[in-house]
């Protein structure tokens, strides 16, 4: 695999807290990579190390196999907290951020114009940031990360404050960026977004990597298949089928988890003797399922 970023044994402590514990993984080039984990898992710390705000106590980060490049010009960063000068005008802020990222002066205006159209900002360029809605401020944040056409985009909770239309637009933009050649790293709590966007991902918990790989491989690794069953009848009658657990049961639609021993044909046969089955589909475990199972119920994933 051609790696964009290689993280090797990164450890970080804050006073007495171990924020990251020997974290190692690689981020493949030119795809959207998900960094998932519950609150306090160490996602933001890892991202800050990636962009150079923090230095790791141990370990190192290689970008494009090179430790000596001037990284800052190649990375676009969207922090989790809305870090914008509230009193600056939209245009002035964008101009300033483009300039400090090294965008040539003569190109800045055209990039801003193009970017504003791209993020579909509703509002005037001479408005102050504080006059914008939270969603629009988040769009500006994204634009700031994109203005210098970075090779790597690091986005910490990019979908915060966006309405569904905004979320869709942002996903579209991220895919466009990958087509352009960029590598995108996002951290998110929204498992369905990660499932939809990310080809590969890393799940971290309490500062450690607990799963890493492509979405498919992680789903396979988790092993347990699901069956989605549409039926008529009394669902209580299936509780006794061995190797089957009901994950969800709503509107005559069952979601069953099969443990490793259960054979799918056997289960289907059993189901049809007990219920009127109209439709059965095999499904892989969702990221949500994997997340909840691995991280446990003691932690709130949202």
């Amino acid at each position, binding site marked *: 695999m051609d790696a964009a970023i290689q993280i090797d044994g990164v450890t970080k402590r804050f006073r007495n807290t171990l924020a990251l514990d020997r974290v190692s993984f690689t981020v493949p080039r030119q795809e959207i990579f998900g960094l998932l984990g519950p609150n306090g898992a160490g996602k933001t710390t890892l991202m800050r190390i990636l962009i150079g705000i923090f*230095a790791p106590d141990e370990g190192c980060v290689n970008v494009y196999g090179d430790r000596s490049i001037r990284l*800052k010009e190649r990375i676009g960063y969207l922090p989790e907290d809305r870090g*914008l000068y*509230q009193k600056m005008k939209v245009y002035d802020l964008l101009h300033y951020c483009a300039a400090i990222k090294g965008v040539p002066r003569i190109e800045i205006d055209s990039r801003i114009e193009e970017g504003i159209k791209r993020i579909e900002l509703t509002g005037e360029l001479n408005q102050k940031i504080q006059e914008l809605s939270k969603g629009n401020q988040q769009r500006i944040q994204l634009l700031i990360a994109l203005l210098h056409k970075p090779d790597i985009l690091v986005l910490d909770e990019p979908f915060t404050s966006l309405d569904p239309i905004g979320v869709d637009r942002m996903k579209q933009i991220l895919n466009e960026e990958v087509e352009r050649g960029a590598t995108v790293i996002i951290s998110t709590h929204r498992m369905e977004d990660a499932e939809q966007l990310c080809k590969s991902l890393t799940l971290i918990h309490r500062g450690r990597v607990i799963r890493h790989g492509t979405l498919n491989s992680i789903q396979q690794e988790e092993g347990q298949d699901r069956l989605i069953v549409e039926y008529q009848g009394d669902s209580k009658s299936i509780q006794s089928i061995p190797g089957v657990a009901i994950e969800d049961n709503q509107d005559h639609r069952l979601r069953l988890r099969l443990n490793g021993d259960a054979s799918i044909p056997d289960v289907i046969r059993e189901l049809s003797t007990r219920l009127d089955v109209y439709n059965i589909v095999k499904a892989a475990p969702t990221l949500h399922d994997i997340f909840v199972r691995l991280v446990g119920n003691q932690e709130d994933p949202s």
Partner: protein
Amino acid sequence: MNTSFQNIRLVAQREIWTVINTKGFILTLVLPAVMFFLVSYLPSIAQKLILSAENTRTESLEIGVIGLEPSIIDEWQSKLQHRKLPNGLPLFSLFPVSVTGVSKDVLIKNAQDKVLKKEWDAYAVINGDITQNGQCDFYSMRGFGLELPREIMNGLTSVVRRIRLEAKGFDPEMISQLSRGISWNEYEITQETASEEAGMKRKADFGKIIAPGIVCVMMMFFLTFTTSQMLIRGVVEEKTSRVVEILVSSLSPTEILAGKVLGFYIIGLIEFAVWVGAGVLILQSQGFAVSEFVPPLYFLHFLIFLTTGYLLYASIFAAIGAMVGDETESQQTQGIITMMLVLPLMFNFVFVTQPNWWLVRLISFIPVFTPTVMAIRMVAAPIPLWEIALTALNTLFFAVLCITIAARIFRVGILMTGKRPNLNELWRWIRYSDRSGIIET
């Protein structure tokens, strides 16, 4: 670490642009100039107003005098004769009040009534013999004029003085002739002007020597104080709003801090130029020779210390901003540090009288004191150019050192809000960035 001047300039530009676009900045520019203008012009404007009030008057001020011989009153009146109304009448009209068989108390009571009814403007009561140990009580209502009674008193004083001198057999004219002072001029010899008589400068007294130094130091103080407050506020605001994450993902901490310090230096220079410009214009317009008061060469040297001193103090303040969690926390420290700038003023007598004493020269090399001590020493005596250059460079060196340390504190402290670091932690932060070699090259 690569520090790009281009980036420093961008940060500086943003700071300047942000500050000069605020209404507060216009106020800081205009207010001191307006204050200075008012202080310089108000007295003369007030004088003119008083005169014009007098000029609209058509009747003399009627002043009754109780208990004084008419002949003395006449002479007193003649001493006040130079004050006239536009219509030619005298400003003051004194007249004796005495009625045979009526006691003084009744006369005073009567006079009081007349003043209250506005028939008279004032009255004077003489107790005892005014030429010996007597006294004069002057009564008027509010609005009579604060300065006028003094003029009236001066008239009576000169009458009494004449009477006393003549009583002892002296000629008052001759006495004033004989007791006048002598003419005394002090000159300062300098290497450059020793040969030419015209180039010799008049030597002023202690107060006049030190005045330009103190004026310059005070300007430096206000400048440092006001802009450093903005500087700290900016750093703290970026920390609390997390703008800093975007900045640090684009710039090095040194670039951010150096840009800020430079930006506020330029803002300070703009303020300084406006204040000095307005001050010079106002003083010149009043016929005050500014270049004689603050010699241009001194001012040039002062600018060197203003710059290096300002950079040093701003760097210290940037470090404080990087350390503290919120603005209020910084205020106490800020106050103490700004005081360091004016602390040497307490010993200015030593610096003026012994400008080249070894101890004074030594103190000039303590960076936080350099600007003030040198500003005062330079007015007192010629200081060798090498010493000026060396102390300035020394301060500049410490300013750069301070910015570097501040950047390291900033780098680690930037995302830590809340608890203020203790000395141990600070020391770790300063050493810390030595080990971070992954990103910065």
